């Protein structure tokens, strides 16, 4: 999920020409391993640009998991039943765990956790645009599970085959856990659409209307405006293009919407027999860019909540460190 900003970054780090003969040889060996479908491990030689690209992508992904806890965390205390509350708690806890797997993977590339957090808290690092939209009703919880986690899974499954092995291993674990996220969301919506009042059904439709477009933006800009995609594909960091993933997601979701009894808010959405796929309307990329640049409905609120949580926890981290040091001194004495 959540690495869409990758594709909007400038070409500031375009691969530099290699210098020494030795480095050239290392580069050749690296390229050959990538071509052979080998995995790259943390201590293997890798081009500096490959390393930087991965740090950026994996940390954006990690930040998205952590910030992604916030919109849903808002609803834990307001879940309609104890069952739904337990499910939501488990899901939000999972997102925290996923963030941790990913931070650990990013750290293998030589960036410390503190550096990664600092980049997030200072606003320097990006996270997925999707978490800057508000969660207004209980139906948003189901819709996030169904559409947002659905889009995330579509995005993440190919990353399980990423050439950088620590990232791939983290993704395998995440994908295994995440399918429950989508299923619980769909089931929550289905319950409302099957047994709910008209007002509850309207609430579901309203949530779908608000989340549909932001969800399909999650796959990032169109391929022809995604300057770094080619390099990431070449390196086996990215396996399937943005547009291809978006199309797969839309094709999969249309039938699910019918089953649910909701409409998707796109009058141009229709089956194209020749393409054996759905055509869909134009995406408002100016909105995407605005939200990604920090001017979405909830950007400030999300970042402030995250920074507050970190700062409020400072005394706990310090106390644990102090306790550990004291115990170590006692043992040494």
């Amino acid at each position, binding site marked *: 999920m959540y690495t869409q900003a990758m594709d909007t970054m400038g070409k500031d780090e375009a691969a530099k020409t290699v210098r020494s003969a030795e480095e050239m040889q290392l580069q050749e060996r690296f390229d050959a391993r990538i071509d052979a479908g080998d995995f790259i491990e943390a201590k293997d030689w890798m081009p500096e640009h490959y390393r930087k690209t991965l740090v950026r992508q994996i940390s954006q992904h990690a930040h998205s998991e952590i910030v992604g806890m916030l919109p849903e965390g808002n609803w834990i205390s307001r879940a309609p039943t104890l069952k739904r509350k337990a499910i939501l708690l488990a899901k939000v806890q999972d997102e925290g765990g996923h963030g941790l797997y990913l931070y650990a993977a990013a750290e293998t590339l030589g960036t410390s956790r503190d550096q990664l*957090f600092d980049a997030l808290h200072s606003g320097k690092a990006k996270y997925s645009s999707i978490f800057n939209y508000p969660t207004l009703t209980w139906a948003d919880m189901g819709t996030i599970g169904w559409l947002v986690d659905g889009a995330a899974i579509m995005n993440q499954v190919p990353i399980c085959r990423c050439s950088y092995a620590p990232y791939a*291993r983290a993704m395998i674990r995440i994908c295994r856990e995440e399918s429950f996220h989508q299923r619980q969301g769909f089931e929550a919506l289905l319950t409302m659409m099957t047994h709910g009042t008209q007002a509850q059904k309207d609430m579901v439709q309203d949530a779908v209307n608000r989340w549909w477009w932001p969800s399909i933006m999650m796959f990032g800009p169109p391929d022809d405006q995604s300057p770094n995609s080619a390099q990431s594909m070449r390196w086996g960091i990215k396996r399937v293009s943005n547009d291809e993933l978006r199309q797969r997601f839309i094709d999969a979701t249309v039938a699910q919407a019918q089953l649910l009894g909701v409409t998707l808010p796109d009058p141009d959405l229709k089956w194209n027999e020749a393409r054996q796929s759905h055509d869909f309307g134009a995406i408002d990329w100016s909105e995407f860019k605005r939200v990604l640049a920090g001017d979405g409905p909830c950007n400030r609120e999300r970042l402030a909540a995250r920074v507050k949580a970190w700062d409020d926890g400072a005394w706990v981290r310090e106390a644990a460190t102090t306790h550990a040091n004291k115990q170590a001194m006692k043992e040494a004495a």
Partner: protein
Amino acid sequence: MSNDTSPSAGPPQAGLDPRGGSAGVPAGRGEVMSHEWPLWEVFVRSKAGLDHKHCGSLHAADPKLAIQMARDVYTRRQEGVSIWVVRSDQIVASDPGDKAMYFDPAEDKVYRHPTFYELPKSLDHM
């Protein structure tokens, strides 16, 4: 996730751990940040009778917290019945640069495998 970067940055393996020490941690948002908790590698036995297997890493202040956090981070779905944690800087690993020297010599010793020996059909299950 970070199993392969865990070795100590002591003299023999200096530079193997790309994370290095925590000395280079920058001050953030205009303030001095506290030092990170040390890194631990986590090993989980998925069920009785099987080996503990490396499953990832985490930061924790001390061994007790490391075990508790490992339980929360890596065994939320009954993935294990036992957990080991070990400080990452206490693990010594082989150098990937020595991979060929260390492991390739075994490649031509095919006689170390049972399939190398051709026996009469009637005995082939030996």
